[in-house]
């Protein structure tokens, strides 16, 4: 890496005291504001002492493109109005799929600066009003509209090119990609908030049952790999990526309450402290430092590790930005969990599974939990928060000494990356 990483520290300690999210899925008739209110109510119902909306001093809300998805700009004041939060200042943060990871950093810095003690950070996206082609065009607008899009590159297309480069340079193959999806759906099956609260085998069995009911020819898939290798079940999107390599199109919202650590105990007995935060930018893939990694992720991670005074070996649970299966493999390498080229082998060996030594995306990740782009960054924080507090239900990691977790949120194809590290207080 070219740039040296300066060690930075927050002006004062910041903690997360509450977290909530809407159901993730496709909800006809629900708009961003409905989803955001749902997330806020979920947070407040689970916040040990609750919070009076009047006490929230400020808000940062990640949202990629309500303008294009819903025809609604200037999103943040509408969210504030629907929470009854006016006149407290709220600001929309847009950094593509890293919008709410970036909002999280703004909230952290607002408290660390001493300006505010109680800040709401959230994210929201309502995507399913548009047909798939429309969503493809909106997501492509996160790429370089002058030099990438005219070349025919779509958002899955650029990740497909990254995947091909990774396959050329290392031993990565199509099965490794599919196994990331199987693993994340196994986790998502244990997450009641997930858009796909089912395993890939479960989806396969449902399709077989439906064919039987309708008296149609019954597919003879032997197992989920067989299912995923059938182009009629898992069509190509942008070779080498297929449908089940891509995160879905999702409606959803998520929010957390950040407070100055010195007042955290008036909200909860179990605050989770922000001990490291980093953010960096990167260039389009054709100008990237390498074709097999996202440099912004490496810089953001280095900043966050420096601030926390720890390294990748100390991270016990991580949510990483698996907008595509290859993105998870590259993320685990960029974050230093595995050496370059080792990511696919770690998936093969089950090391990133719920019972592995490096559990990744216990929530189901963007792949199974769903990817309402502007909400995903905060939803990742929420999973780490729940895991560290022992509140992750059926997907709770067995490690009773769970203390440190990380969230890695990417915008576009690495134009933005935010890494936050949390520690149980």
């Amino acid at each position, binding site marked *: 890496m070219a740039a040296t990483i300066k060690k930075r520290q927050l002006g004062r300690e910041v903690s997360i005291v509450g977290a909530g999210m809407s159901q993730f899925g496709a909800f006809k008739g629900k708009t961003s504001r409905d989803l955001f209110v749902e997330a806020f109510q979920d947070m407040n119902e689970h916040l040990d002492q609750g919070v009076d909306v009047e006490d929230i001093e400020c808000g940062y809300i990640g949202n990629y493109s309500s303008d294009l998805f819903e025809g609604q700009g200037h999103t943040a004041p509408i969210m504030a109005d629907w929470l009854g939060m006016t006149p407290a200042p709220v600001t929309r943060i847009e950094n593509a799929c890293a919008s709410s990871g970036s909002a999280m950093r703004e909230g952290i810095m607002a408290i660390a600066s001493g300006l505010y003690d109680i800040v709401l950070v959230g994210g929201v996206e309502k995507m399913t009003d548009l047909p*798939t*082609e429309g969503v*493809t*065009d909106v997501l*492509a607008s996160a790429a*370089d509209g*002058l*030099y*990438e*899009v*005219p*070349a*025919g*590159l*779509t958002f*899955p*297309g*650029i990740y*497909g*090119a*990254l*995947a*091909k*480069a990774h396959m*050329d340079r290392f031993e990565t193959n199509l099965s490794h990609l599919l196994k990331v999806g199987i693993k994340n759906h196994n986790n998502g099956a244990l997450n009641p908030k997930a858009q796909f609260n089912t395993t890939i085998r479960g989806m396969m069995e449902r399709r077989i049952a439906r064919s039987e009911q309708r008296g149609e020819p019954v597919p003879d898939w032997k197992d989920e790999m067989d299912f995923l290798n059938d182009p009629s079940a898992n*069509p*190509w*999107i*942008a*070779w*080498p*990526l297929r449908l089940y390599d891509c995160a879905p199109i999702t409606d959803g919202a998520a929010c957390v309450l950040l407070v100055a650590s010195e007042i955290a105990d008036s909200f909860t007995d179990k605050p989770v402290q922000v001990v490291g935060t980093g953010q960096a930018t990167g*260039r*389009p*893939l*054709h*100008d990237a430092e390498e*074709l097999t990694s996202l440099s912004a992720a490496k810089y953001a991670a280095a900043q966050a590790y420096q601030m926390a005074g720890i390294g990748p070996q100390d991270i016990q649970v991580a949510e990483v930005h698996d907008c595509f299966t290859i993105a998870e493999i590259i993320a685990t390498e960029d974050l230093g969990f595995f050496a370059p080229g080792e990511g696919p082998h770690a998936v093969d060996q089950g090391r990133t599974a719920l019972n592995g030594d490096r559990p990744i995306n216990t929530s189901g990740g963007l792949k199974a939990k769903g990817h309402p782009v502007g909400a995903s960054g905060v939803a990742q924080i929420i999973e780490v928060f729940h895991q560290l507090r022992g509140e992750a239900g059926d997907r709770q990691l067995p490690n009773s000494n769970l203390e440190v977790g990380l969230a890695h949120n990417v915008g576009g194809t690495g134009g933005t990356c935010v890494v936050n590290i949390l520690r149980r207080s």
Partner: protein
Amino acid sequence: MADDSRAFNAASFYEYLKEGQLMGVHCRACDKLSAEPRSMCPSCHSRDVEWHRFSGQGQLGTFTCISVVPDVMARQGYGRNNPYCSGIVMLEEGPRISAKILGVDAANPQDIPTGMALAADFDEVDPEAPALAFRPV
């Protein structure tokens, strides 16, 4: 060689493309090349840049074959049953650039070799929506 009165921007890039030239910029201060015209060098931040004509020769760095296509490609007949190839081309002068890859079988991507020699194809530049394309030499 180049008309230095043109602005260093995308409009000029695509104007040159329609004229059959792949034009980027050379930084006189640090000697770096950029395939995308810019008025400020991203490496040394100098504004002392000049037009540089690229040969149009390069290698296929990486690529994808796209089946779920944007509207603009659907209007050209591409789609689930007719994917197209896009990739990253490593120009022989050093910089990389994104481009359409023509003359390959996008339905059989496993047979498309990365590293193969490519040359810019100016013949099929659509005057309404100019885009950079390469094909195998």
